[in-house]
């Protein structure tokens, strides 16, 4: 893989930090192997938990015999649902939909198991090995029941029920209507239908989950170390489950080896381990295995959509009517119902539709729960609308770019209110598209395609012009608050400590937040330390997901700095014997307006502020401020991705020849981090486009439970990238940033999909289901006779 960036990163030392491509301060400790992950946490007297898990997708439990396991030397205890469930609460869902029907989600199975891997009992032992040995000795008598696997069949009358007590497999329905759909369809020159499947995928973070809990009996408090994206949300949700006050729980998130949404959850294991630490008064640790991770950490996507599209002959897309079935698996996890609703909200993409109607049905099946996976609902929406755009072009014989341009709002129309009711903050979609064309050398690509087709080769060009919803979000749309918190402290030495509640976990915000603070305070970045991931330090936070950390967490830090500067002006005025109103601040110095030569820096001011001998009347000692930033709106990053592919007609294999991405994530704090996010996102999206799929057999057995069978792209599978950007600041925060964590995963799958279909179009192929594995592509070619 190689990457061509639009322009080399500027790293002149005189440049402001914001906008500089800086290497991550996090990297040295990670590269040297001295970072601390949960499994590295050493606790004196720790005991180890392992879970007995169901081998069946659907079965009743007739009996559980733990006697033999309990007798194994080194085993401290074996606990079943009957022992624990009433004391460890139920797994919360933060986004239940009105009228929804879902089962009580106990931390261990009760009288029935509902998916392969469902935890049935937990063994605690002196060592991990003994705990695993003891698992084999727990005898569970299961009575298997036919599994509900196909979500469409699950909706048929008379279908077996995943949860019989609910009387239905429908977990929820959700509808969205904007504009006059019937009128739009009446106005249409043409109507076409598309059926689009988004396969289930497995996040497969390199570091599986894990947690350790320590009960401090003297203080009656608990510390939980967990590999999560959301320590603060866990601190909000877990106390009620395990029966301790919130202010007696500390949640620590050390390094996290990949989350991608899969660690945006409160899982059974976290509650059980916390409960056991309290119950046994012993530090207790659990580390997830790879196969466990594939089976019992949430999955993503898994939607089936039937879409009806109304268009005019000039390429105007008038309306979309969609029926979407979301296979949500056996239980609701934290955000399970919310994910497909994001698909509905974003289904119009970056286009001015007249009407939209989306009906979503969430269906329970005997699988692991589906929940947020990088992009979470938006990749599905973008894939749908971007396939629609290409389909329209194909149907009408128009240029796909012209169709897109025809339907996009102009830059002057922002803020732009969509037909689904969202207000896109800012945008210039045409500029990103134009730049991507330029970077991709569009005319040359067209020529290459022409030449290739003349030679009988299956060469395709695809593009996607996407918009996504990020910086989630105003509190009014978030179950537990959508603000973010930050704190800045000028230490007595003049060094600066920044504390964020956003809990970055690999995104590099120890670096980018320091860049923001360094510029705003006018100090060297080396003087700043960014703390995160510990609720005892970061007192508040709503954590990292939905590409929110910089837009919200960064803004909270900037707000805090502004407060400190204003406060410090009073102190500087006293020391400079001037009126506070005459004090100015620039480049880290406070001075009397017009007398810049006589200035005071942070070092002297901090010392004065803490020693507190010369404080002006009413000046509170110390230089620290914190802020909650409540955003007025989400942000809406956008961009254009273009790629060229060639399909081997003999094997069906797709080769990506070149990949171009122009992303607009608003103001750029650190272009190097942005590039890394885009690269990683495209890689995951490429996996979803070409190879990744989570497969259950008809009995609900997971067939893709390890890397041997679950294909993810390796470095050799990643094509050459050409990356560029446009910069359209967001008005929703004072930094103007939008977020970029999911851009690649949202833009790339439809781009690759459109390219593959374009490559196959000379054969008359207009649709292939995701992922475009060689076999599926080959079969599509065979069905068309395989000839031009």
């Amino acid at each position, binding site marked *: 893989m190689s990457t061509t960036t639009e322009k080399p990163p500027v790293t002149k030392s005189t440049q402001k930090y914001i906008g500089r491509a800086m290497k991550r301060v996090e990297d040295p400790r990670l590269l040297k192997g001295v970072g601390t992950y949960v499994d590295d946490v050493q606790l004196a007297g720790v005991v180890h938990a392992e879970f007995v898990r169901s081998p069946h997708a659907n079965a009743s439990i007739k009996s559980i015999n733990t006697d033999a396991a309990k007798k194994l030397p080194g085993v401290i205890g074996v606990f079943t649902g009957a022992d624990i469930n009433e004391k460890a609460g139920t797994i919360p869902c933060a986004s239940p939909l009105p009228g929804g029907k879902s089962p009580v989600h106990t931390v261990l199975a009760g009288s029935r198991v509902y998916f392969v891997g469902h935890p049935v009992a937990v063994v605690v032992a002196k060592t991990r*090995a003994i705990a*695993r*040995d003891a698992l*084999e000795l727990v005898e569970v008598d299961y009575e298997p029941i036919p599994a509900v696997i196909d979500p469409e069949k699950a909706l048929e009358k008379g279908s077996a029920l995943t949860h019989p007590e609910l009387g239905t497999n429908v977990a929820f329905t959700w509808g969205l209507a904007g504009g006059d759909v019937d009128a739009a369809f009446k106005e249409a020159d043409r109507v076409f239908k598309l059926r689009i499947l988004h396969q289930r995928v497995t996040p497969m973070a390199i570091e599986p989950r894990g947690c350790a809990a320590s009960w401090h009996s003297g203080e009656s408090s608990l510390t939980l170390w967990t590999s999560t994206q959301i320590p603060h949300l866990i601190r909000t949700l877990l106390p009620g489950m395990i029966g301790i006050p919130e202010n007696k729980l500390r949640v620590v998130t050390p390094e996290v080896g990949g989350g991608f949404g899969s660690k945006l959850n409160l899982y059974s294991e976290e509650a059980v381990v916390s409960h056991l630490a309290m119950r046994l008064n012993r530090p207790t640790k659990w580390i997830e295995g790879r196969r466990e991770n594939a089976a019992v950490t949430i999955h993503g996507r898994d939607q089936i959509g039937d879409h009806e599209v109304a268009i005019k002959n000039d390429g105007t897309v008038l309306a979309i009517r969609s029926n979407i079935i979301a296979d949500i698996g056996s239980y609701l996890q934290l955000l399970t119902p919310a994910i497909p609703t994001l698909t509905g909200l974003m289904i119009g993409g970056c286009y001015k539709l007249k009407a939209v109607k989306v009906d979503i049905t969430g269906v329970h099946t005997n699988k692991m729960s589906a929940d947020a996976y990088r992009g979470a609902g938006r990749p599905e929406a973008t894939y749908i609308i971007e396939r629609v755009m290409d389909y329209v072009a194909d149907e009408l014989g128009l240029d796909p770019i012209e169709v897109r341009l025809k339907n996009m709002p102009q830059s002057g129309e922002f803020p732009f209110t969509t037909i689904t009711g969202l207000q896109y903050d800012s945008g210039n979609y045409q500029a990103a598209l134009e730049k991507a064309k330029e970077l991709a050398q569009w005319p040359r690509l067209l020529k290459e395609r022409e030449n290739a087709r003349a030679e009988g080769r299956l060469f395709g060009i695809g593009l996607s012009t996407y918009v996504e919803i990020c910086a989630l979000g105003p509190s009014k749309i978030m179950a537990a608050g959508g603000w973010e918190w930050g704190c800045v402290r000028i230490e007595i030495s003049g060094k600066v400590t920044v504390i964020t509640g956003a809990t970055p976990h690999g995104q590099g915000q120890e670096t980018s937040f320091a860049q923001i603070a360094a510029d705003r305070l006018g100090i060297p970045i080396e003087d700043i330390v960014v703390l995160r991931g510990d609720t005892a330090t970061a007192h508040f936070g709503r954590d990292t997901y939905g590409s929110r950390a910089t837009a919200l967490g960064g803004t909270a830090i900037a707000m805090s700095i502004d407060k400190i500067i204003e406060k410090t002006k009073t102190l500087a005025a006293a020391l400079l014997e001037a009126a506070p109103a005459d004090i100015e601040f620039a480049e880290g110095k406070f001075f009397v307006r017009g007398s810049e030569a006589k200035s005071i820096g942070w070092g002297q001011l901090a010392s004065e502020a803490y020693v507190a001998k010369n404080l002006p009347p009413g000046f509170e000692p110390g230089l620290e401020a914190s802020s909650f930033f409540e955003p007025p709106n989400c942000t809406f990053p956008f961009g254009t991705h273009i790629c060229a592919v060639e399909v081997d007609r*003999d*094997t*069906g*294999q797709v080769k990506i020849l070149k990949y171009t991405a122009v992303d607009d994530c608003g103001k750029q704090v650190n272009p190097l981090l942005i590039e890394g996010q885009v690269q990683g996102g495209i890689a995951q999206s490429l996996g979803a486009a070409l*190879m990744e799929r989570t*497969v259950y057999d008809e009995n609900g057995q997971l*067939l*893709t439970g390890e*890397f*041997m*069978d679950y*294909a*993810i*792209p*390796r470095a*050799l*599978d990643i094509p050459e990238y050409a990356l560029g950007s446009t910069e359209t600041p967001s008005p929703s925060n004072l930094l103007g940033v939008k977020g970029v964590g999911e851009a690649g995963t949202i833009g790339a799958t439809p781009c690759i999909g459109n390219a593959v279909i374009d490559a196959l179009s000379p054969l008359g192929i207009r649709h292939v289901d995701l992922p475009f*594995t*060689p*076999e599926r592509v*080959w*079969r599509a070619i065979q069905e068309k006779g395989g000839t031009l």
Partner: protein
Amino acid sequence: MDLNTITEVLRPAEPEAVKNWHSGYAWLAGGTWLFSEPQIATHTLIDIESFNWPSLVASPEGLEIAATCKVIELDRFTPPPEWKAAQLFRKCCRSFLASFKIWNEATVGGNIVMSLPAGPMISLTAALEGICKLWPRNEASREVPVADFVTGNHANALAPGELLRSIFLPASALKKNYAFRRFTLTHLGRSEALLIGTRCPERGEFVLTVTASTLRPVQLRFETVPAAETLKNALDQAAPFELYLDDVHGSPGHRQHLTYYFAEQIRQELSA
């Protein structure tokens, strides 16, 4: 992983020390598969690395590869220049869905006795007309061609307690011209099809070995490079549709197609 059913590990000085073979015994070499999943029926491991067999013994007659030879040793082996087909060693060693850590421990014999369709050491040694030397318990040793040794998905010719001692690759095969084709979903992924063709430069004999796409190796021999139709017909005879593997890496239909496709490519390449 820990094998919690194991109660004893034996390290005999020679195989003859294991007189009586019991249910629950398992030979242990590299252990990369053995320790990768629970072995609930196994209680005793017999470590054959204690036999100290020389990993690779080259002679004018060919190459004897001990069952305990590490994959990395085979990968690094420097063959005589006239053994043109020895270039397949590296290609097949890199056809594992495995990291270098596995290469360092996994053995050639272990991969063969695992007898999975995508075992690249099976592909290699079958294509190079390897002969398995088998040591039954308390009986005289016997020899079985690798192509016949693997009888199905995870099935082979070993009797209970019988030990794979070595695989002998004849120099005549190693001197052949070869063509190699492999198909995977991802680079370094598990093989969906792995075909190797060889052709004797003197006599013109053509041998096609199909692995990974089929449940067991399928080997076709022709006195000279056959016509395309002849080759396809022979494939149809030797590998009926039911013999093609069906798993998440590919369906029988796609595997059969790839087999035809690569077989023809190999035929053409070796015709030149």
